[in-house]
């Protein structure tokens, strides 16, 4: 399975990751993607995520080819 994984704002600074391609097997949920992509770095409690540009939850299932993003609470407008 292959995933496009993105990190934004303070999470990009914290993890040192911005935009990576993750080749991995046995990943079921968004939480699994975080763990594998960050090599099990701790995840800040208020971290948000999306699957294919739509807000998601960490327990949501992922599929081959998904774009998974991680970001802190939003502060636009």
């Amino acid at each position, binding site marked *: 399975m292959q995933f496009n994984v993105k990190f934004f704002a303070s999470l990009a600074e914290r993890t040192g990751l911005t935009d990576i391609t993750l080749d991995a097997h046995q990943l079921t949920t968004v939480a699994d993607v975080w763990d594998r992509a960050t090599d099990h770095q701790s995840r800040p409690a208020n971290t948000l995520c999306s699957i294919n540009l*739509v*807000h998601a939850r960490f327990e949501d299932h992922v599929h081959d080819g998904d774009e998974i993003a991680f970001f802190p609470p939003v502060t636009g*407008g």
Partner: protein
Amino acid sequence: MAVRLSGVVFDPWQELSQQAANLPKGKHGACASFVGTMRDFNLGDTVQSMTLEHYPEMTQHFLDNTVAAACTRWDLIDCLIVHRYGDIRPGDAIVLIAAWSPHRAEAFDACHFLIEELKARAPFWKKETTDHSTRWVHDSTAD
């Protein structure tokens, strides 16, 4: 209906004027709009400048969907959202929201819905440079 992300300064009043000029005359009775502008202060500090990071594809997708949701919920003739990203200076417009409707309450409610959804869920992140530091803004929902 238009959702536009801008990397450069935009003039909200000119955007409104242009959007309104393209509407059929006499159909809308009401336009409610909101303009959010960068302040030079936050949390007691003087702010020199700000960088607005965003997740471009998701931002566009989210805002398009939010406009579509507003159109199913209220009787709207047109909506306009313009949002800045990149480097921003105090006094610059950050966001413009407008909703045109035959009726006043619908225009107001839709405009309010759009800005609240945007503030709560659109993937933008502010990093501000104050007199003594550069910091990510943690919460701007009430601003």
